[in-house]
């Protein structure tokens, strides 16, 4: 048996439900531009009918409905797309950092140009050629000094820029560690809040959106896997658990992240890109440049010493067949009777075979480290031997002396050899694993390799960016707020609301008739 006011109740439920739908539409529209927001829908269902099944029932036919109610408000989201997004986002993060670092390296290498290392190398050899034309003069020596200083300055400067870039990357890893920690902290907090709310039977839609947003952000920085458990998100980086449930996560640091790269747990994302860029690309170029500097000064070269050269007293030279010859005694016994092929330890050894115009004409090592040592020379500390820099008359050009040991100033054999060293192949490898190249070709190969790496990183970054954009588009397609859709929904709900209100008015009028209009016949 239905109640007199049944119709009023039905209309009331409708009004309430359509209102809820309209409010949710409003919420959607309001968050149309909120990052990470997924649209929400009110799930309506016809409310339980008047008469439940049972033994006692009225004789009224049919089953009388009792209107509408909403059972839940849910967000529209596809978990599969979230997983895909996070999976691609880490590659994008990785390659965008690599590309960025390589672009910076390209700026540092500064080729092709007339102001890079290649130019100072060419100028250095040209200065020797210029000196060879007037080996007795001071001006040619000063040019050699200036060009040698320009060369070492360029190497020092490039090495400094590289070590700055390396330090920047280390600093950025630390900054990212802080950002990761704040997100992990946020996720643990949200895990708690969501559990509290949902324990009461609600859907914590907006909090879930926020938590997913934090996970999205994390996925660009490091490789994560997200598992939803009863106590919330568990986030792992490879085999390392970062956060699980309500417990406050243990903070990550630059060191733990570097260790995670070594153990293989951290293998993608921006942080990985930074550590890889630092340890592989930047360190690689530092090593290459160091090798360039050291080989120029100390690397093996095969040189043909011209006939008539006087080898300085007490010098032991390595012949091309590996045997050694000690030159000692009178000038004539140290004079080469024919062109002699020897293997020398770089321009330093070559320079020591010459004589200069100073009062003590013995050749000095040409390049030294900043502290004056000549052992292993690095790009950061290579410099022109201080004695030479202070006094360019100590630059040797001649390889001949008179019988009494005095210099023959017009001889230019050494300066010609120095100039010809531009086309000599230095051993950039080791004795057992030779890598013979001219200085110019070696530097060229460094720049070329950088170009290939950078080109590759740009391609990879564009690819992964395309994928991330595509998947994000798919996600937006599912979860994004469409204003057109919300507007048409709004009209739909508004009409339903209006109709329910009209229905209520009609029932009101009907009851008015029953209550106030009936039983007054003939009055």
């Amino acid at each position, binding site marked *: 048996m239905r109640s007199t006011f049944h119709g009023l109740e039905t209309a009331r439920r409708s009004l309430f439900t359509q209102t809820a739908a309209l409010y949710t539409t409003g919420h959607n529209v309001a968050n149309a531009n909120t990052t990470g927001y997924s649209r929400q829908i009110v799930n309506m269902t016809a409310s339980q009918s008047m008469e439940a099944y049972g033994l006692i029932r009225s004789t009224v036919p049919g089953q009388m409905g009792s209107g509408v109610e909403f059972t839940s408000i849910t967000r529209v989201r596809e978990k599969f797309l979230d997983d895909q997004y996070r999976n691609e986002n880490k590659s994008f993060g990785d390659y965008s950092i690599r590309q960025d670092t390589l672009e910076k390296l390209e700026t540092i290498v500064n080729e092709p140009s007339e102001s890079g290392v290649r130019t100072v*190398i*060419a100028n250095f*050899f040209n200065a020797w050629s210029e000196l060879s034309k007037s080996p*007795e003069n001071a001006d040619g020596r000063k040019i050699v000094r200036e060009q040698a200083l320009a060369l070492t300055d360029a190497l020092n400067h490039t090495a400094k820029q590289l070590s700055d870039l390396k330090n920047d990357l280390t600093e950025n890893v630390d900054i990212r560690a802080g950002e990761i920690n704040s997100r992990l902290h946020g996720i643990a907090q949200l895990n708690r809040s969501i559990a509290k709310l949902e324990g009461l039977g609600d859907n914590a839609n907006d909090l879930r959106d926020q938590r997913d947003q934090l996970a999205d952000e994390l996925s660009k920085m490091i490789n994560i896997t997200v598992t939803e458990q009863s106590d919330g998100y568990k986030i792992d980086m490879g085999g390392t658990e970062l956060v699980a449930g309500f417990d406050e996560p243990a903070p990550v640091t630059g060191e733990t992240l570097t260790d995670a790269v070594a153990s293989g747990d951290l293998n993608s994302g921006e942080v990985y890109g930074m550590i890889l860029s630092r340890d592989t690309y930047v360190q690689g170029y530092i090593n290459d440049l160091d090798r360039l500097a050291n080989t120029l000064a100390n690397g093996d070269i095969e040189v043909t010493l011209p006939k008539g050269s006087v080898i300085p007293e007490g010098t032991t030279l390595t012949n091309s067949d590996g045997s050694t010859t000690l030159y000692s005694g009178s000038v004539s016994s140290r004079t080469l009777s024919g062109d002699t092929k020897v293997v020398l330890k770089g321009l330093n050894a070559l320079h020591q075979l010459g004589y200069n115009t100073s009062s003590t004409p013995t050749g000095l090592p040409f390049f030294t480290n900043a502290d004056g040592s000549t052992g292993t020379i690095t790009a950061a500390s290579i410099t022109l031997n201080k004695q030479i820099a202070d006094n360019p008359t100590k630059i040797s050009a001649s390889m001949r002396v008179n019988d009494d040991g005095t210099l023959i100033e017009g001889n230019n054999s050494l300066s010609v050899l120095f100039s010809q060293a531009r086309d000599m192949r230095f051993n950039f490898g080791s004795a057992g694993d030779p890598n013979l190249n001219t200085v110019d070709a070696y530097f*060229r190969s460094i720049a070329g390799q950088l*170009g290939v790496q950078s*080109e590759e990183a740009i391609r990879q970054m564009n690819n992964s960016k395309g994928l991330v954009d595509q998947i994000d588009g798919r996600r*937006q397609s599912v979860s*994004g707020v469409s*204003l057109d859709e919300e507007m048409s929904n709004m009209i739909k709900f508004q009409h339903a609301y209006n109709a329910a209100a009209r229905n209520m008015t009609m029932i009101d009028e009907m009851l008015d008739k029953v209550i106030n209009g009936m039983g007054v016949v003939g009055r």
Partner: protein
Amino acid sequence: MGIRVTQSMMNTQLLRNVSSNLGRMNDLQNQLSTGRRINKPSDDPVGLTFSMRYRSEIDANDQYVKNTDSATSMLDFTDTTLGQAGDVLQRLRELAVKGATGAQPQEAYDAINLEVKELYNQLVEIGNSKFNGKYVFNGEQTQTAPYPGTKIDDATGKMAYEVTTDAGQTQYELGPGVTLGANLTGVEIFGNPTDADNVFLVVKQVSDALKDGNYNKVSDLIGSIDTRLGTLLEKRAEVGARTNRLALVSDRLTQTGVNLKSIQSKTEDADMAEVITNLKTEENVYQASLSAGAKLISPSLVDFLK
């Protein structure tokens, strides 16, 4: 299921397209303003290595051109000097012919001898010629005068005809592994101390013979003058040949320089017509994407509901 499209998706898409379009325009602008296709290694890594090599080769080539010019001026100077020495010897020969005539008073021989002695001094001066601050005829001993600057009558020290000059040759770099010695040494031109026709010795002997009025001896010496003149001519021809070789080298270096620059330009330089055309195309696309964006982004159903 058709794809659901939302306003923010269109926004994102538009922004992405416009920004990638701007990125391409930026690259083209860069090419246009530098005139170069390769502005950083990643623009074309292979092209970059070629471009760097061409640049280094051009730098080296420029230096070889300078060296060739220096060697040429050195040889030109030598040639001029040899010309002067030749003139002196010609004059000596004329005087010797006069002095070889018998039945003259001793005063006549003495008069001739005066000039012969001056010729000796002039030859010493020529032997001690300096070019760019260097003694040219003393091999690599460029800071030491080869022939003591003494006159014929000074008996102190070494006489010019007793001198062996340094045999070294200053090598000029004309190319990778190519060198040329440009200087001639004193003994090559004026003769060894052992040579019978050592120019200083011959002049001294002529002078001594004239002093003694020994015209027969003077006559005998004319032969030595002639052989030395022949040697001088030979040396001048050699200098000429070397100058010719240098001219050829210089031509080749110039040609190589031009070739290298053109090949460098082909590797590095942007094809302007192509760049401008592409830039115009990109500009059109940019305009189109902006105007399409303006049409698509603003309206939604909101604008049409009253």
